[in-house]
């Protein structure tokens, strides 16, 4: 009795991928314009600055930091609201069964293109019209949000069970009635949790948008980094981390409550 071992699976493709990946990575390391020797004293440098930032954070500017944080959060909120208002109708039009095929295709490509552009570039573009105000940041976040909310929206509309939609149609429901009674009851929890998730993303992004001068915590952080007031930078980072994590935690709880329903006592 001989053991009939199954033939070894062929691994040509896998090996080729491995080879390609390794080549690309090595080529990138080798060709990039960095003095790799510098990397040796990097840990010490970073440790030194980290010490400067966090050994004794300067809390005297905390009130201003909180004000700027509020502006960032407000920017994120307004951006989310703008995105919801614009993206929700668009995502219905982009869903199968609801919009004509050519329009659907155009919208989907549009969503994909918006998602490919970082929001800070959108902010730079619209800046010449809206100026260096938090409004610019909010509008940039709003436009960027259309890409993500639109995509998630039509995917979730297409995932809605067909039964309620068909029965609303069969009962003579109009387009808007189908949306209200066939789609919305099953899609709304997902929609709301997407909105909250997008708000979480926006809170992070709004801090970044400050870098181009539209205000908020990012603006303050870049200024103090440039002044090299490390103890203030440390304080600002602590504020950013705490606020972001707190908003994530609250928003995450609400999302779970929306998608999973109330816990039965």
């Amino acid at each position, binding site marked *: 009795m001989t053991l009939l071992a199954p033939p070894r699976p062929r691994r040509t493709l896998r090996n080729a*991928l491995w080879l390609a990946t390794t080549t690309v*990575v090595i080529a*990138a*390391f080798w*060709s*990039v*314009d*960095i003095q790799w020797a*510098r*990397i040796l004293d*990097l840990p010490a*440098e*970073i440790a030194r*600055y980290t010490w400067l930032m966090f050994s004794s954070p300067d809390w005297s500017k905390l009130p201003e930091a909180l004000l700027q944080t509020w*502006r960032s*959060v*407000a*920017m994120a*909120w*307004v951006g989310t*609201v703008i995105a919801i208002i614009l993206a929700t109708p668009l995502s219905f039009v982009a869903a199968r069964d609801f919009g004509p095929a050519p329009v659907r295709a155009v919208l989907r490509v549009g969503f*994909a*293109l918006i998602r*490919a*552009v*970082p929001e*800070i*570039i959108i902010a*730079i*573009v*619209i*800046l*010449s*019209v*809206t*100026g260096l*105000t*938090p*409004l610019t*940041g*909010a509008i940039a976040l709003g436009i960027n949000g259309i890409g993500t909310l639109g995509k998630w929206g039509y995917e979730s509309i297409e995932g809605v069970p067909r039964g309620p939609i068909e029965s609303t149609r069969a009962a003579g429901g109009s387009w808007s009635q189908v949306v209200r009674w066939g789609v919305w009851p099953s899609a709304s929890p997902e929609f709301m949790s997407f909105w909250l998730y997008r708000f979480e993303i926006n809170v*992070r*992004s709004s*801090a*970044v948008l400050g*870098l*181009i001068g539209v205000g908020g915590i*990012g603006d303050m*952080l*870049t200024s103090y*980094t*440039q002044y*090299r007031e490390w103890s203030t*930078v440390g304080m600002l*980072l602590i504020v*950013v*981390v705490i606020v*972001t*994590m707190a908003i*994530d935690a609250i928003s995450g709880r609400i999302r779970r409550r929306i998608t999973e329903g109330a816990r039965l006592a």
Partner: protein
Amino acid sequence: MTTAAPSPGPAGTSAPATALTLIIPPRPRGRWKPWVAVAVVLVITLITFSPQWGIAFSFEAIARNWQNGAGKIALLLVPDWSFFPRTIPPLIETLQMAVIATAMGAIISLPLSLWAARLTNPHPVLRGVVRTVLNIVRAVPELLYAAILVAMVGVGALPGIIALVLFNVGIIVKLVSEAIESNDAGPLEAARAAGGTGAQVNRAAALPDVWPAFANQSLYVLELNVRASTVLGLVGAGGLGLLIDAVRTFYRYDQLSLIILEILVVVVVIDVISSTIRKRLV
């Protein structure tokens, strides 16, 4: 609870008792809660839109600047193709940063992912420490890291790469350790029961299961890195962003338009390649 019970209330007193009354289930209580939620959302929205406390949303300001700005934005429609040769070196640097950061981030993340998952690290304290540190790391956007790192180590690709690595480790470890949690505990228990050391258990039982998720998330992070690395230069961290910063100071939106087009092409191409590979992995 009989079906023939006459319906109570003033209207039902004179009506004859019928054999069939529809018993409607009681309206669920707590119907006011969604309305409270809507009200809270509306109040926050009003505050954030208001000029005193919020960000002063006004169409008027936009209308005032329209004349001035719209012409510049229209320049986006006529990309300056002669600018193309100058964009190539920064574009390549952007891709180099993305690839290097992904590779470094992936290598650092592998052991950390094993540490952060319950199945592969039964030690609660160590696991908690890894998770907490990474939660904090994830709370700061990569561009803020880049801004600070540029002040620390100077302008160039290096601060950009470090910022991306921090960002990547946060994401990969979270996603991969979550994937490990959903793996089958059987092989690990078998390896431990057979007397394997920690390294042997990881090598023989944990890694084969971790591998697809790990490769998948690393490629996903590569996609994120390509997007992120295009703008890191705005704070001096190398790549296309440096050029964006130079171009925007002079409102050369025709040149900016070319850069945006290049970003679109690169991001879409990398996304397509990466998602084809990822589909084969899963």
